[in-house]
């Protein structure tokens, strides 16, 4: 395929996010004065290695989508860096940003809203590719790509409304793949689909990843799907990442009380689950407008102690490549 793949730096992580922050102003009154901020993303750090799938999990409103949108610079960040192949996306000027953007693509949750209804599949999938490469055979390229995502070549002359939800998500995936990006961000790509169709799309993403070798940020609130698809997992709570580890360590040996609570709360689809129900954490997620002091989870944490209310815990590597932000693991606690 006629694509230029220059600018690739072979080593180092594909993405390194450092202390990223996004505060949305809350404006009130006639003069639209800023009366406060939504601390949507508040000092987030993570790294994605080349070819790796990082799962980003957490409950509604914790800031997952905002992280994804920041990486595409759909918002101007309040602070922080995001090094894509060593260069800071957050500091790029328009030209450089546009060049970087073709290497980073996004797949959205809602296949209905994310495809322009007035364009045919051919344009939706192939337009950017045609403009970037000038390839005269772009239609053949689109046909080939449609085959790879499980659609047929003759689908390319149809409009999005002629497809089912699962098929539309396949179109969205083909569009994201068209420029052969090095990083794909998928924001809840299967959450809007029927249960019986979710498996089709999850398997498709898995096999495309093996074939194309892109790095992958997979955002989801569904812990089971993330476990299935990710190599590493980051858990978010109220704008912060509280734990990062390999898939196995995170699920089999969760360290943060929130991660433990989250895993315990997932309903288990197995015989006897009703008899084995356990007590789960209490309370609602606090507002990101006035997040709790200290550790943000202290208002719901069954193991909170005095320091948790006053001091914000720092991320530390408690076990090899297993990071956690919780005072239970402070040096002092170990004596």
């Amino acid at each position: 395929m006629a694509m230029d793949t220059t600018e690739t730096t072979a080593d180092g992580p594909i993405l390194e996010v450092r202390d990223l922050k996004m505060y949305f102003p809350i404006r009130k009154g006639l003069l639209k004065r800023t009366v406060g901020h939504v601390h949507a993303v508040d000092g987030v750090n993570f790294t994605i290695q080349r070819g790796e799938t990082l799962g980003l999990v957490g409950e509604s409103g914790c800031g997952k989508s905002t992280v994804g949108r920041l990486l595409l610079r759909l918002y101007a960040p309040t602070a922080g860096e995001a090094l894509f192949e060593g260069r800071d996306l957050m500091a790029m000027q328009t030209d450089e940003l546009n060049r970087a953007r073709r290497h980073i693509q996004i797949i959205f949750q809602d296949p209905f809203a994310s495809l322009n209804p007035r364009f045919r599949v051919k344009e939706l999938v192939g337009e950017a590719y045609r403009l970037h490469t000038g390839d005269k055979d772009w239609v053949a390229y689109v046909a080939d790509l449609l085959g790879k995502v499980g659609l047929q070549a003759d689908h390319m002359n149809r409009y999005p409304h002629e497809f089912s939800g699962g098929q539309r998500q396949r179109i969205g995936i083909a569009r994201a793949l068209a420029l052969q990006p090095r990083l794909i961000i998928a924001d809840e790509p299967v959450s809007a689909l029927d249960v019986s169709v979710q498996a089709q799309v999850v398997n498709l993403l898995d096999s495309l990843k093996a074939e194309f070798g892109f790095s992958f940020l997979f955002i989801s609130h569904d812990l089971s799907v993330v476990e299935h698809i990710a190599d590493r997992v980051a858990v978010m709570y109220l704008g912060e990442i509280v734990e990062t580890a390999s898939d196995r360590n995170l699920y089999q040996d969760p360290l943060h009380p929130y991660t433990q609570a989250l895993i315990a709360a997932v309903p288990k689809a197995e015989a006897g689950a009703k008899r084995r129900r356990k007590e789960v954490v209490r309370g609602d997620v606090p507002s990101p407008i006035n997040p709790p002091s200290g550790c943000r989870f202290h208002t719901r944490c069954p193991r909170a102690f005095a320091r948790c209310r006053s001091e914000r815990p720092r991320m530390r590597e408690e076990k090899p490549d297993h990071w956690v932000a919780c005072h239970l693991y402070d040096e002092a606690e170990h004596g």
Partner: protein
Amino acid sequence: MAETPILEVTGLKTHFHTPEGVVRAVDGVDFTLMPGRTLGILGESGSGKSVTALSVMRLVADPPGRIVDGRIMFEGRDLLALSPAEMRKIRGGEISMIFQEPMTSLNPVYTLGDQIAEVFQIHEGMNREQAWAGATDMLEQVGIPNPESRVDDYPHQFSGGMRQRAMIAMAIACRSRLLIADEPTTALDVTIQAQILDLLLKLQEDMGMAMMLITHDLGVIAETSDDVVVMYAGEVVERLGIDTLFDDPRHPYTRGLLNSIPRLGEKFTRGKQPLEEIPGTVPNLIDYDPGCPFAARCGQAMARCHTERPPLFKLNPAHYSKCWLSEADAEGRAGVAAAG
């Protein structure tokens, strides 16, 4: 079991007359719910779960909808034969429902206290003061902190989880014997979902009510239900006990569903395997196909499946399957073998 069921639905069909044609939203639904037990209704989007529930409540909008066939027996009474006035007394009194859309049952212009108190005034004949005290008490029971100050709040001042609790408070206010909960936790986060499920199970234990819990989530079914009904394209395709659902499901759709979801921990115990896919998509409910509605997607379909609709085969008194493959093991048939 000599006990009589609290709810028995037989051969239920509810259709919608639309300009595009007749939508067979519910087209052959049979199930039985025993007192004090939880019946889970499982099925994906559009399979007819909500319309089944609304049919039991007799709340299907007519037109365009109509219950065209079947029987709904509640404690021995035929609900379809009751007058609208009699039915109104049953709704919110003996049977109550938590609706899928929280905002359809909570009125945004009244405080939560007013709305719960109204239930007490209508169904229990309480005066305003008693009803108000009852409302505060209900909010406390469903775990709303500081209920005395929260009764004066409007629905929009509550978080999603709190709204869901308020709806539950309203639904259980008059201690109905049957609670129908339509996707009571679908919009909620897992930690809040777990709290709400705990609450429902505890209330059920305290009050001995039967529950019909509708969901598309196999995990939620596993954690709440005693018996299960699996719906596909408007029909009950399998009815079975919760343990049998996991140990010996018979219908190919049920089996496909069980294998298509990733389970926590499975990747590490069995190694990563692709999820099982159910190819294709659900059929539309307008074009009537004489065969099994699952035939086009079924890996085990035989010639007969495409031409002849299978009846609900009885494998044992607690297990029914609407699939030709079950014929050989069946003791007999139940319900109606739907014909075109």
